[in-house]
């Protein structure tokens, strides 16, 4: 094994350079807008050059794999690593991401010129590029998950860049939450792999799966869970609802993230984890079916949309569906032991799609910049006005429609080839290809070639500044020529580079003819309807009114989710809030009420019992005194009598009757009589309530 150059060994620098740019802008360069932009572009261009060098290195090493890692957290039997893995897939991805990234950054200088948060935009873009590049060079599932989440975060920040618009704020939340749901599945898949394979490193996991150490059911389940992440990130059915709304973000964001790179992360994940899908035919067919279904739904919706960016968004979903389907079919066929071109079909299409879709979005941004509207029904005749944008846009449209010899034709052809062994897939794929060609050229005709609908807008339309125009040209070149590395039989370099098995190209000649015919027929139908006007689109719409409404309203997915998921969740949250309110407030109020009641009891106690005792004793004394005061008659005779009586009593109490020889009863009798007499006397006195009764006067 030849020695790897330090460029290759340090290919992680490609992702660190944008991070450095982010840090510099955030801390130092924020206030100098142009400087931020220039710095950011410089960093990404540096990364671009580095990535190309890495690609060349890998090519020269004939597709060898280089891995270097560092055990970040290690405990018995398990370790979390930080490391890089550079193989052909990685190199290709690096090249794609940096190329499109650089183009978009240069384009943004012109597009975001008047935005008050100019430097922040470049900071976010740099952060995103760091995350995406890190995702691509990761060598284990743990690292890719971290960067996966980072990519989601930066996508959120960028979609909601104009957060004053409620629709933008809602859209970025929707994107984040929807992809989060997919990430939940991804995480479960990670846990399963970590538990059953004992490691998260790609190579070790795939080795364990291939050697059959993990039960088949677990492999299938883990594969499907991993695929959940891809479903979320790549906007597959049923988590596709966020991508069209993500168009609320600035157009460069749409071009970079939602066409070329972030959404490709899901496809990248499936491609990277192919060993897992190959080991499980059931998981692979699930992947393929979902890809196909997604592609069909999205293409059908794109037929009737009027917002230029929405059309392109649904187109992205549809093309991603193609890629996922191709990879799934490869996994299925390989699991059953057949050959399939699906792997490199998917990855090849990933590359070409990044270029022409990026170009389409940037061109759309250019058009929007010119006519200040997104609605294609208000555009028209821009071919004459926009001499650079229009041809570039049309080249990209031809490419996506699949017209030879442009890039899209070759990659789409590979995808069709992958479906050959599955007739249903083949028919639907061709139908989708027809629809793709149709709606893309509907867009082109209405925007560029048809007579202008709105004269006012047409008058004011102008070409974009140079910073916006040059990236368009550059991407146009790539959109046209990138496919030439994958021409079967003649120049199958891509497939041989990326794929390590036998390259398989069945029936290539009549297959290519078939795809070309399908594409041309789609374009012709669009030509008839929208340029010539032979078939009236309005009449068609009215004839198929229910279908039209259904497609126009995006198959009512958003409404369905709203009813089934959003409303119950909000209701539950409201219920929890009211419960918390009641319980917490209830507890507080209850405590207060209890305290008040307790102090009321104490007050009652204090008033009635304590005060009662005090007052009562006073009252008692008063009553007794009030009653007994009548003993004081004022009559001396009365006093003297009492004194006498009591003296007699005392004398008798001390009377020594034994010596006297008296019976005891005598003594008692006498005492008793005296006592009775005295008491009766007292009581008779007490009957007086006023002055003693007056007997008659003398």
């Amino acid at each position, binding site marked *: 094994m030849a020695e790897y150059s330090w460029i290759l060994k340090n290919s992680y620098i490609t992702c660190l350079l944008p991070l450095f740019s982010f840090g510099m802008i955030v801390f130092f360069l924020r206030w100098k807008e142009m400087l931020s932009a220039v710095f950011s572009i410089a960093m990404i261009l540096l990364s671009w050059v580095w990535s190309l060098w890495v690609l060349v290195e890998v090519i020269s090493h004939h597709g060898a794999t280089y891995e270097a890692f560092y055990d970040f957290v290690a405990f018995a039997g398990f370790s979390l690593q930080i490391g890089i893995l550079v193989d052909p897939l990685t190199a290709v991805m690096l090249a794609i991401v940096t190329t499109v990234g650089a183009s978009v950054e240069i384009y943004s200088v012109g597009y975001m010129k008047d935005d008050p948060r100019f430097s922040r935009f470049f900071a976010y873009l740099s952060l995103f590029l760091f995350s995406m590049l890190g995702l691509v060079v990761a060598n284990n599932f743990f690292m890719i998950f971290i960067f996966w989440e980072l990519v989601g975060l930066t996508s959120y920040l960028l979609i909601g860049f104009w957060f004053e618009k409620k629709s933008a704020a809602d859209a970025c939340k929707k994107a984040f939450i929807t992809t989060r749901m997919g990430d939940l599945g991804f995480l479960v898949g990670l846990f399963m792999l970590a538990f059953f394979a004992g490691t998260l490193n790609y190579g070790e996991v795939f080795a364990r799966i291939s050697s059959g150490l993990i039960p088949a059911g677990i492999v299938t389940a883990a594969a499907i869970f991993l695929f959940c992440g891809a479903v979320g990130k790549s906007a597959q059915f049923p988590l596709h609802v966020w991508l069209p709304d993500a168009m609320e973000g600035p157009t460069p964001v749409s071009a970079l993230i939602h066409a070329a790179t972030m959404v490709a992360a899901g496809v990248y994940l499936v491609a990277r984890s192919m060993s897992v899908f190959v080991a499980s035919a059931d998981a692979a067919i699930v992947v393929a079916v979902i890809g196909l279904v997604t592609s069909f739904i999205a293409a059908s919706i794109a037929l009737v949309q009027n917002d230029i960016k929405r059309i392109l968004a649904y187109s992205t979903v549809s093309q991603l569906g193609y890629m996922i389907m191709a990879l799934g079919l490869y996994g299925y066929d390989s699991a059953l032991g057949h050959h399939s071109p699906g792997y490199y079909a998917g990855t090849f299409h990933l590359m070409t799609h990044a270029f022409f879709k990026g170009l389409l979005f940037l061109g759309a941004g250019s058009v929007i910049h010119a006519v200040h509207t997104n609605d294609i029904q208000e555009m028209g005749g821009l071919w004459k006005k926009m001499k650079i944008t229009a041809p570039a846009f049309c080249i990209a449209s031809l490419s996506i429609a699949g017209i030879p010899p442009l890039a899209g034709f070759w990659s789409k052809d590979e995808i069709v080839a992958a479906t050959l062994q599955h007739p249903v897939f083949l028919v639907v794929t061709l139908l989708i290809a027809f629809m793709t060609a149709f709606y893309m050229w509907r867009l082109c005709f209405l925007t560029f070639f048809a007579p202008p609908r709105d004269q006012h807008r047409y008058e004011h339309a102008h070409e974009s500044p140079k910073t916006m125009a040059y990236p368009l040209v550059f991407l146009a070149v790539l959109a046209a020529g990138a496919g030439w590395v994958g021409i079967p039989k003649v120049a199958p370099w891509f497939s041989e580079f990326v794929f390590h098995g036998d390259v398989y190209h069945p029936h290539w000649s009549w297959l290519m003819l078939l795809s070309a015919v399908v594409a041309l027929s789609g374009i012709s139908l669009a030509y008839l309807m929208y340029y010539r006007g032979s078939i009236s689109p309005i009449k068609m719409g009215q004839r198929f009114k229910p279908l039209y409404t259904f497609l126009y309203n995006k198959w009512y997915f958003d409404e369905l989710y709203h009813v089934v998921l959003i409303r119950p969740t909000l209701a539950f949250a409201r219920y929890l809030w009211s419960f918390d309110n009641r319980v917490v407030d209830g507890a507080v109020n209850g405590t207060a009420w209890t305290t008040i009641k307790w102090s009321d009891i104490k007050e009652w106690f204090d008033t009635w019992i304590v005060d009662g005792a005090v007052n009562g004793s006073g009252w008692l004394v008063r009553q007794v005194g009030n009653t007994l005061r009548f003993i004081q008659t004022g*009559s001396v*005779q*009365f006093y003297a*009598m009492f004194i*006498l*009586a009591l003296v*007699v009593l005392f*004398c*008798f109490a001390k009377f020594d009757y034994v010596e*006297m*020889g*008296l019976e005891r009863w005598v003594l008692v009798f*006498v005492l008793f*009589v*005296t006592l009775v*007499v*005295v008491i*009766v*006397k007292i009581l*008779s006195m007490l009957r007086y309530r006023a002055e*003693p*009764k007056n*007997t*008659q006067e*003398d």
Partner: protein
Amino acid sequence: MPAPDGGIVFAILAFVIIVSALMVVSLKNIFHCALALVLCLFAVAGVYILLNAEFLAAAQVLIYVGAVAILMIFAVMLTSKLASRKIRQTNENALTAFFVCVIVALSTIVLITKTDVWRLTDKALPADNIATIGKYLMTKFMLPFEVVSVLLLAAMIGAIVLARKEKS
């Protein structure tokens, strides 16, 4: 119990004393009470004679009957406007006082009769009563004699002062 010395005379005198005493305390007409008092005092003098105290008997009659009782009668006449009216003379304490006094009397009598402390002698009293009294007044009882005379003087003056007419 041996017969009292004096026999029947004592019995009659005792009866008179007690009856007249009862009349003193209970008669409605205050004048009748005064007269009863006189009778009582006479009878007491008779008892003194029985007890060989002749001079005392004479003094009793002289002083008590002749002065005090007369004084009382004078007072009665001076203070009662309604001497003839029959009004109740006892106040509301009568019943209780009655009981108490009965008990006092009974207890005293019991006390007297049951005591064995008295040692009666048979020595005779000095025969010449007056001379002996006079002798003792001047010797042994000199101080009380003088004090009593001062007391009499004071009483006399006091009575006069008290009873004199208001200077209006």
